């Protein structure tokens, strides 16, 4: 299946839910509505022509724009057809909540935890949403654009000499 066939299949099934599609350097990215991500995920996993069963990655991007500040990107792969596709959702800053896809791809568990740790995007329905890399007491989200590279002084404890 080529990229345009995948787009056609998704559009006939979901119509308005597909907000945008983009092809760049041979890769296909499909932006869908945030609330419908679980339905789209189930469809692309179970449909035999698509069969995207391997979750490669789930990450967040801070676009630092007033509308839909964050984006969550899911990179998925089909073992039968040997192709990649990216699903993208836009998340607002005021309500950074996205339904979790761990019901569809259990391997997205730690990736979503990392996205929560780095950006502060909560995943509703996640079995175990806690910080991944930073200590639990850390109060900030490091990969946001307004967090400085050297960190905030005294935000992490250091033992005394």
């Amino acid at each position, binding site marked *: 299946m080529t990229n345009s066939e995948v787009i056609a299949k998704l559009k006939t099934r979901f119509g308005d839910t597909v907000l945008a599609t983009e092809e760049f350097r041979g890769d296909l990215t499909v932006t869908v509505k945030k609330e419908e991500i679980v339905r789209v995920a189930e469809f692309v996993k179970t449909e035999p022509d698509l069969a995207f069963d*391997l979750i490669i990655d789930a990450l967040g991007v801070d676009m630092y724009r007033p509308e839909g500040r964050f984006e969550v990107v899911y990179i998925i792969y089909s073992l039968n057809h040997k192709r990649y596709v990216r699903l993208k959702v836009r998340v607002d800053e005021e309500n950074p909540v996205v339904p979790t896809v761990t019901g569809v791809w259990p391997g997205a568990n730690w990736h979503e935890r990392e996205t929560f740790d780095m950006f502060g995007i909560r995943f509703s329905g996640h079995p175990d949403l806690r910080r991944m890399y*930073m200590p639990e007491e850390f109060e900030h989200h490091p990969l946001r654009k307004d967090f400085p590279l050297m960190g905030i002084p005294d935000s992490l404890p250091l033992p005394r000499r």
Partner: protein
Amino acid sequence: MPVRTPEETKKSQILAALEDQDTTVVVDDALENEMVLNMGPQHPATHGVLRLLVRLDGETVVAVVPELGYLHRGYEKIAENATYHEFIPHTDRLDYLSPLSNNVAYVLAVEKLAGIEAPRRAQYIRVLVCEMARVASHLVAVGSMAMDVGALTVLLWTFREREKLLDIYDVLCGARFTTSYTRIGGLQQDWTAQCTGMLNQFLEEFKQDLAEVEALLQTNRIFVDRCEGVGYLSQANCIAMGLTGPLLRAAGVPRDLRRDNPYLIYPELDFAVITATESDALARFYVRIAEMKESAKILRQALDRLPEGPYNAFEPKKVPANKERTYTKMEELIHDFMLVNLGIDPPVGESYGAVESSKGELGFYIVSDGTGQPWRLKIRSPSMTNLQALPMMLKGGMISDIVAIIGSLDPVMGEADK
């Protein structure tokens, strides 16, 4: 008359007072208590700083919670503040057992985004270097798994082999270990005849040495008993958890990026994709040994077909020219200045480039905003995704299996923690 010490007097007084009290002690059934054991970040067998919280019922593992983050160095934030070239040394330190394959993976992802293609000689050398890195990494993986299970000799032998490869890196890249050898559009320096001679010698000796290691372990009753049937994960679970690399291939799924989504000049080479079906620690060990033999085959083929030609692409606005032209010609000097200070300017967009590293699929997802520094760079690390399956593999096993299973997973914390 015997003299009593004050302690004896006190003791007899206490015993007298207790005589008419009920002194039977009731303890909960000791075997009903479960214990939480902390295999802390500093541990000989956790392959780096991995913390495992293990809930034990006697010696049986009930549940495991891994905790990562003890080596989180903030790579992705550093990448947003550095140009594409400046990030190349950082990629060395990701999977620090095979630094050259990380270099190649990153540079391929950036070249895909920027639309540059390296010349054929550079691609052949990159394949050579990637496969050498795969052999080096598998040598350490096999050696440390054997050491964790008890066979210390194997580690010393595999490190001796690895030293020969590190000597080749020394001559080729200038550094033994963290090489930073590839550049966007090509390589740092050329492959020389001395490297060819050293690699030829290595390939001659490697077959024999690998056979020695195999002979030591393959029929060793203790090793086989300790690893067989341990850490089993069904194929469906492997796919559901997103595993890649030797773990997925040991479960019977023949996925290898070099064959499925080929990059560099792999379509022209002849090699087999090794799979096994048992999906336990022993199967993964055999997959790694067989992959080393396939890598030796690939090295032989690529070395025989190495073409002549330039080793850097001719893209004046993206790839710096060689130093002689930079110091003598005006245009090249200006380009060099712009590239070093401001970076290459790939078009606005996002792309994902991945290679098959020794641990699995190592990918870089780059969001570019048109400037010389990436807007977002996400490292898809195979070790982190592979570690996700650890609780499922450990459940129901014994404590002593934990070590064998982690050895068969072969995580590298520099990659898992980014």
